[in-house]
């Protein structure tokens, strides 16, 4: 196929950002995402009017993102788990000031400094408000190289459309792995409509203020409700998911990102053994696709949530399911990447217990813990 290139995830993200019209990048290095700033630095060095800056810290870089966004740029920053924690104050401010920005988190093992292996321990932080205050961040979770390209384009569009920060939540493996990708045509930033909040000098127009300080409690309350109204629109418009082999399924595995592609491999193996097992993969983590999962929960018997964490998204799955079917959890935290065979064993075990009719209720809420290495 024409135009197909083999690129690592971080480079795909960088190229897709540039093609989406991103002309400003601010960041501070951390493994496993350093190839992204590396790509932006090399590309922007050759581009008129583009700005790459390695800041003195994560705090500085997220506040530079704020400045560039106020000036109207399509702007991005990236980091990995500990660095994203440091950026949370700035992300809260971006949300409060209703500023578009794209933030990339290539998650690594944690908590603390953890390690540099792929992990999914930052789900709560990403989807439930990582910083202070009443706000949400749109969170997109790619699972394939092509999806990194597509979702990066979508992230910039959503950020501008809704005037809100958007996070792309990947992991070390998504960042390092190379896969074939076809890029969309590049956009010309000069062709973008003029943003009506930009601070670019008020000659000939009334002055504008972009701020997050509202000492008048009534005004702060109004900001909060305005954000809620916006979030309600986002929640209606963008939830997205992949539903795979679910039509006849009795058991569904729910997973996102890297975990989802491994789970899909597990589903294939279980299907080969004649077991009716399917996959539900949220592509947006916030807003979470509650409705389609709720519909699915009416016709299947058991959901297994697989995450590379000790169990975070499983709470959203339970909220969607509301007890209509059983939900259990299987996790490999700390940077361990499970194999498709391992997931197939877990799924098959659940499936066999269904068939033996020992009563689904007995399994409800059960958590499978791996012991030692697989």
């Amino acid at each position: 196929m024409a135009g197909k290139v083999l690129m690592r995830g971080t480079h795909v993200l960088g190229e897709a950002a540039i093609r989406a019209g991103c002309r400003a990048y601010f960041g501070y290095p951390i493994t496993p995402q350093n190839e992204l700033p590396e790509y932006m630095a090399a590309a922007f060095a050759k581009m008129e009017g583009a700005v790459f800056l390695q800041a003195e810290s994560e705090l500085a870089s997220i506040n530079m993102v704020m400045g560039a966004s106020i000036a109207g740029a399509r702007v991005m920053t990236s980091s990995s788990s500990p660095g994203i924690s440091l950026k949370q104050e700035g992300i809260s401010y971006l949300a409060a000031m209703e500023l578009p920005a794209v933030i990339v988190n290539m998650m690594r093992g944690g908590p603390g400094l953890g390690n540099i292996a792929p992990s999914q321990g930052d789900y709560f932080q990403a989807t439930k408000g990582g910083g202070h205050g009443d706000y949400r961040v749109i969170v997109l979770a790619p699972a394939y190289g092509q999806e990194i390209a597509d979702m990066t384009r979508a992230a910039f569009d959503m950020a501008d459309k809704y005037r809100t920060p958007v996070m792309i939540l990947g992991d070390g493996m998504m960042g390092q792995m190379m896969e074939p990708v076809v890029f969309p045509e590049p956009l010309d930033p000069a062709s973008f409509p003029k943003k009506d909040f930009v601070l670019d000098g008020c000659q000939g127009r009334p002055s504008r203020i972009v701020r997050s300080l509202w000492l008048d409690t009534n005004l702060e309350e109004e900001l909060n409700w305005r954000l809620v109204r916006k979030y309600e629109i986002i929640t209606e418009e963008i939830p997205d998911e992949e539903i795979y082999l679910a039509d006849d399924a009795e058991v569904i595995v729910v997973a996102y990102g890297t975990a989802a592609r491994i789970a899909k491999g597990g589903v294939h193996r279980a299907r080969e053994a004649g077991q009716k097992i399917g996959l539900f993969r949220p592509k947006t983590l916030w807003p979470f696709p509650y409705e389609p999962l709720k519909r699915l929960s009416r016709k299947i018997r058991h959901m297994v949530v697989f995450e590379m964490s000790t169990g975070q998204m499983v709470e959203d799955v339970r909220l969607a399911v509301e007890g209509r079917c059983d939900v259990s959890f299987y996790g490999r935290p700390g940077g361990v990447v499970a194999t498709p065979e391992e997931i197939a064993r877990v799924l098959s075990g659940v499936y066999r217990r269904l068939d033996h009719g020992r009563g689904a209720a007995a399994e409800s809420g059960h958590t499978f813990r791996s012991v030692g290495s697989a």
Partner: protein
Amino acid sequence: MLLKIIFSGFGGQGVLMMGYVLAVAGMKEDKHVTFLPAYGAEVRGGTANCTVVVSDNEIASPIASSPEYVVAMNYPSMIKYLNMVKSGGTMFLNSDLISEKPAREDLKTVSVPANSLAHEMGNDRALNMIMLGAVNAVAGIVSEKALAEAVETVLEGKKKTLIDTNQQALVKGSKYMCSGCGS
């Protein structure tokens, strides 16, 4: 078809390039491919390795816990991956640096004197493409044409002579296997 191949050796032996060229060749044949280099702490200590998956269908995991093929360019690599190779799988050994045979009965081993063959060619650094040519001649993962084209893509913008040398090295490795000197 779902094949997982691990390439491993010293830093500087062109191990990542071997995997990269194979993955690009697979892509050119419209197969699903993933290329996963070892990174960070894993590569400290001078070893380099990467995993390539080539498949007719979507690839679940780019990690190979039991690869069909392991290409060991040095002795530590053979030891590291010996017990991971799938039963019935094949280990390709750079016999110039590995004198022992792997202690497993259920594996095929293919010995390729990659350093010597590269030296014969007058380019010691071509050992990686010689090995890749040999691997593909035995495993038949992609066509020889796709491999040659992949070298052009990977070395795009480099000197024509460099591209030629690498393509000739692929052919040399392939011919070495076809003449029955391996195994």
